């Protein structure tokens, strides 16, 4: 019973705002119907997580998100025995919980996890769709409602943190990128609560920073940063200041790039 309550907390009841870039929603729905897991690729802050939230809402499934890190162990995903009042009690990990409840399990930044940890999803990610829980001696078969989704950013990960081909080749891959000028403007207007003209300038600024790759900026301003800058502006912070703290600062520490981005900001606003 208690487990049910917990999984219910993961249900998304209000429609998250998501502006489709292409046919990704239809593709994801088709994959869901066919029981194929999803691999979401794209730069930071371009809407991968928002997309999966939207999908979970649309499919009316709870969404269990795990942010992966390099100390994440198999037990952290599957579950472990805990001691409660002198007794060993099994506690499901987020993955097991999602499988039991037929939820969507979303492993964010999967490449950050160690390779031996990611192997645990293999039987779940192919046509077997099962999760062996060794310690319980249980073989959990995923219900049709269950879906596995993982995400990673191919931009900044090193060769060492690439996904193993055996892991990759179990997914259908949806590539995300920053939306085009019009759509990104619409997103910033809606989420950042700013006027269209201001939003368009923010998006232009983002485009400028995104072309600084060869000048030493590994990634340009993400849509998320634009929205944050927009929110500050909506709170009455002057545009140049808002950009400085919400875009320039978070992007880099390099003094030359800082001043260069500041120049872009002052040219636009």
């Amino acid at each position, binding site marked *: 019973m208690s487990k049910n309550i917990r999984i219910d907390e993961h249900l998304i009841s209000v429609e998250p705002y998501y502006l489709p870039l292409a046919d990704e929603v239809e593709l994801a729905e088709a994959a869901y119907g066919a029981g194929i897991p999803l691999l979401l690729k794209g730069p930071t802050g371009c809407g991968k997580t928002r997309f999966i939230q939207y999908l979970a809402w649309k499919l009316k499934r709870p969404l269990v998100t795990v942010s992966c890190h390099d100390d994440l162990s198999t037990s952290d995903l599957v579950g472990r025995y805990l001691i409660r009042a002198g007794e060993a009690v099994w506690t499901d990990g987020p993955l097991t919980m999602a499988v039991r409840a037929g939820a969507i399990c979303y492993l964010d930044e999967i490449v950050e996890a160690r390779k031996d940890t990611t192997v645990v999803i293999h039987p779940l990610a192919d046509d077997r769709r099962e999760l062996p829980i060794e310690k319980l001696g249980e073989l959990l078969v995923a219900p049709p409602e269950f879906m596995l989704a993982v995400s990673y950013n191919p931009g900044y990960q090193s060769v060492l943190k690439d996904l193993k081909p055996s892991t990759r080749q179990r997914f259908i891959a949806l590539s995300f990128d920053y939306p085009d000028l019009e759509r990104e403007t619409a997103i910033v207007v809606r989420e950042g609560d700013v006027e269209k003209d201001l939003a368009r300038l923010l998006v232009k600024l983002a485009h400028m*920073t995104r*072309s600084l790759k060869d000048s030493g*900026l590994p990634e340009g301003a993400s849509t998320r940063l634009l929205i944050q800058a927009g929110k500050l502006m909506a709170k009455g912070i002057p545009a*140049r200041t808002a950009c400085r703290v919400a875009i320039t600062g978070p992007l880099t520490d390099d003094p*030359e790039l800082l001043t260069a981005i500041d120049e872009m900001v002052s040219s636009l606003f």
Partner: protein
Amino acid sequence: MELEELKNVFFELVAPDLPNEWDVEEAIESLEGIPEEPLATALGQVPVIWPVSNSLCFSYLTQVAGALNCIELGLLSQWVNETLDHYERSGLKAAQRFMMDVQGHFVCRLQGRSGLRYSQVKGRLLPYVRGLAKKNLDLQRADCAFTDTLTIFLPREISLFTNEDDNFLLYKLIASFQWSYIALDSFLVSRNRGRANPSAKGILWLQDYFSGFSNPVLIADIYHGLETLRVKVFLDQELPGLMRDAVPILAKITASPFGREKTGRFFATFQQLVLSQEVDQENGWLQHVKPLLMYGATARDSLALAEDIYVALSPEAGDYERIEPLSFQGRMQLGQVASARLEQRREQENLFVESLATLLLTLPPVTGDAGDDDEAGGGHESGLAAPPEEAVAIVIVGNRGRPGEEENKNPRFITIDNREIELSEELAELAAAITLDLGTIPDQYIASATGKAGQGTPGLTMSAAGDGAELSAPITYDEWDFRRSGFRLNWCIVTEKEIPITRSTFIRNTLDAYHGQIIRLRHQFEMMRTSERFVRRQRDGDDIDLDALVESLADTVAGRPPSDRLFIRLKRDERDIAALFLVDMSNSTRGWVGKAIKESLVLICEAMETLGDRYGIYGFSGMRRLRCEIFPIKTIDQIYNDEVRERIGSIAPREYTRMAPAIRHMTSILKDVDAKVRLLITLSDGKPEDYDEYKGEYAIEDTRHALIEAKMAGIHPFCITIDQHAHEYMAHMYGEVNYIFINDVRKLPARMPEIYRVLTS
């Protein structure tokens, strides 16, 4: 000091060089009569300049007496440094020019009386324009502002305003205006619209077009003026912040004086409009240019209008005198645009040929049924159906079967001898750019590509010639000159060369001789491998620690507070180490030393193979700054196999020990390796030294600086040396604890793995 005495001092300073006595006399003539202290300071700079350029040093000597009159003694070295900077960036003439005017070029600036210099703003503006342009535009300085579409040229200095911020803003405005000309396609006009030869396709280049007018300068100036107006409207819309900030400085810029005649009135109107100044509403020209004041006007509109205005102005513009353009407007240098275009065309051709050749090489060979041609399956390894000279009938097919995409916009296929080849995205973009420029992809591009592919592109294969075939293009590195506390730019040329292989029984003998030690080493190193161990009594873990649980239950029963550390966790200690061994291959390693170094390399490799750390081995030697040679013996990704062993066996003494460029090269390799710990271990037998003046303090300081650069890149340098005098300089170069001296070279093989073990555990 007497001339004779001065001469002797000079010869001592530049020894062992022996410059022409006559030249020296002429140069130091002016130093006669300078008091002792300034003279000593002035001569003290000779060793700094002489090795960089003898001619510059002579010029310095003739100028320094004058310079000492205007600048304080303490600033002399700064003046020399700036002179050298000029020399390294722009050559001898520029440096001499700089020295000539001490007051204007140096003193005024120091006193803050001059404006803002290009070098002060470049770092800020370059990323700015690249951000604007969304491509790799370059910045350079020139006498006036213009752009050739690949580079924006900015004035050397702006001193129009008294305050630096305003001067910078003007720099930014110039850069933004010049970028806008490129962004708005001011230099190319599409041919298929408008009046100019409507039937022809492709783009119309202005230079070609203007040359048809009787007064090409006038039409160019009119067009440039109109384009500037269009750019202003564009910038008002695109960069409103900049244009708002620029209002005060625009107000300070005054329009050039114009005559009363028609031409003058036209240019006056245009400059007033650009500067947002009041224009008389009755002004006839205002009506003319109105269409350009709308956002969204095109270069074609400007050109059409320019033609009209030209017709109106030309009768009285027989001896048209060019007006001074607005400072941010610059001049249109159509000749430069044309040569940049040719340059770009050449680059595109090379890139296209290379990429297409590579693509063709990767294609599977044509089988017999792939084409009608009997020769099709004739065993061309490149996968081409025919030899290059027969590769004809080239057709670029548009986006076949891709509805919705404009025909020919991005050619996706290329047909060579009836074989349809799909282009990669990059190649398709390139093809599109070439098609836009030339109307089609010239046959010879494709012929060259198929030719290259047919021959098995020479650039792709590596010859294994006897004496050190070059493995990569030479790379230049700066060298640190401690006397001027600055770098000599692009001073050393480093080339990676293949080590000439000599066959010997060295490896077998070493493996036999150290058989027992190798087994021991392997065992030792195995213990250091990534260890996985269970740690007990953790608060959180994968499994329950039963011992701890029993204890805790017992404690509870006994009334003692139970522990909450009841879990077992699997802990992995990963060795994430990458090491590069840099081996001195100088002549002094002949004999025992070289043998010991080679043996120790074999041993360390055997040990490293068990350990699993990533490692590479490079040898270095060379002679003079232009020939620093690096011999890759094992790169970090290579496996330790017979070839590597053979290369270790072939390590032989060569020339000199210019250590710093080798260290800089190692740094550039190692800094791209993703590892928690990055080690650079140098094996050396003596001080850094080269054939030229690279020795003593200079060499040690340069090496020290290279090591500091390595440390800044997150690399730990360490040195193993067998030089008896190592203590005198090693601590200064590497730091007290970062080197080890081995007194008996015979012990080196045994010590080396041990040192590595201690270093990394």
